């Protein structure tokens, strides 16, 4: 009974949304309602996920685990953000300052670390995987794109030179198009498998 009810809900919602692609005028209001409810459920799921994160760190602090001090920092940061957000509004200067001055330095520095990691990883790629057609194409493309972006490769603005430059700029689009189509086919297959109840991500 439980299984039938879950499958019925899945099919009802899935087919309604799919039908909405073909009859947007007729099903528009129902579609809005279904999507709004879905947004509410996804929001609640995210809150439950954060609840689990907080619960894990509270139990780490309570158990006095190794490096429980870091869990305490996380809990303190979480509580401070919530309290400041509740006392002041979202647009208040103190709240935006807190968000920007934590988010910006950490995210930019992580991106900076990524630059070094990417550089070492690209050298490691060649040394571990050797000279395969993919690694050679990767390296050549990286060098050419870097040259094009930096303006080091310049063959004029008109004529054959410009055509060659345009061709070089378009070349990565070919593989990207294939990858996009592959992702689209993968998404289509997974979606259909869920809608045909071959896959059951909601449990038995």
């Amino acid at each position: 009974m439980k299984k039938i009810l879950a499958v019925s809900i899945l099919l009802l919602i899935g087919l309604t949304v799919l039908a909405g692609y073909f009859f947007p005028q007729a099903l528009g209001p129902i579609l809005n309602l279904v999507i709004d409810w879905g947004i509410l459920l996804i929001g609640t799921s995210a809150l439950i996920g954060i609840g689990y994160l907080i619960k894990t760190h509270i139990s780490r602090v309570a158990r006095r685990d190794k490096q429980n001090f870091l869990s305490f920092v996380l809990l303190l940061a979480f509580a401070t953000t919530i309290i400041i957000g509740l006392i002041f509004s979202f647009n208040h200067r103190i709240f935006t300052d807190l968000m920007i001055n934590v988010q910006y330095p950490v995210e930019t520095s992580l991106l900076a670390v990524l630059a070094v990691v990417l550089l070492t990883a690209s050298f490691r790629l060649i040394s571990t995987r050797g000279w395969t057609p993919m690694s050679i194409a990767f390296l050549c493309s990286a060098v050419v794109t870097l040259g094009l972006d930096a303006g080091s490769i310049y063959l004029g603005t008109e004529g054959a030179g410009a055509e060659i430059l345009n061709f070089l700029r378009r070349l990565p689009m070919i593989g990207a198009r294939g990858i996009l189509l592959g992702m689209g086919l993968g998404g289509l297959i997974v979606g259909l498998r869920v809608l045909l109840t071959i896959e059951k991500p909601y449990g038995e």
Partner: protein
Amino acid sequence: MTFSYEIMWIIFGFLLTLMVLSYLLGDNIFFRFASHLFIGVMAGYVVLLISNQILWPYLVRPILNGTLPGVLWLGIPLVLIFMLLLSQFKGFTWIGSLPLAYMAGLAAAIAVGGAVFGTLLPQSRAIVNSFDPAMWYAVPNQTWLRILDAVLMLVGTVGTLSYFHFGRKRKSTSDEDMEKRPAILEGLSKVGQVFIGISLGAVFVGVFSSSLLALIDRILFIGQFFTNLFRSF
């Protein structure tokens, strides 16, 4: 007052920057401190964001200010939310399958629609359009270049697709049987490897350039911090 407030944030940002960049020397307590602080603040921000942008406008406000039929309609998501919350307790796990089925149905339908109308049709149409004779003859003396471009686009895209395996996992007894694919597919997948490598190389440069800019920004920030510090003495 404002001066010391701003200085406080600059010092805070400077310390966070140093803590994160210390990861370049290896995983250490300072990096973990910064990441835990970041996760805590972001988790708090997400809770406030969900409350302000989702729960308040989609649930609480319509209940407080809405009409009776509207409030009655909200009974359905309220029951589903209640089920989702209840499923977190031992003994009630099964009850969560209904709201999860709702979300799975919604996500699957959006994925199917998005894949077909957002990716497969426009991308396939772009390849087909490149074989339009009107486009080939649009620019004089470049007809063969356009044809070459279109053929390369087709071969590259088919090759890239051939590199992926869309089949179901086979219950094979031998490794040899697993690797058997038609020779034409194998040949095309080799061509596809080259095009994937070219695309990934271009993506790599894009990401690398952005992260290099971020590195320069942080180095400049640290330099500016010390310059201002020495100037103030």
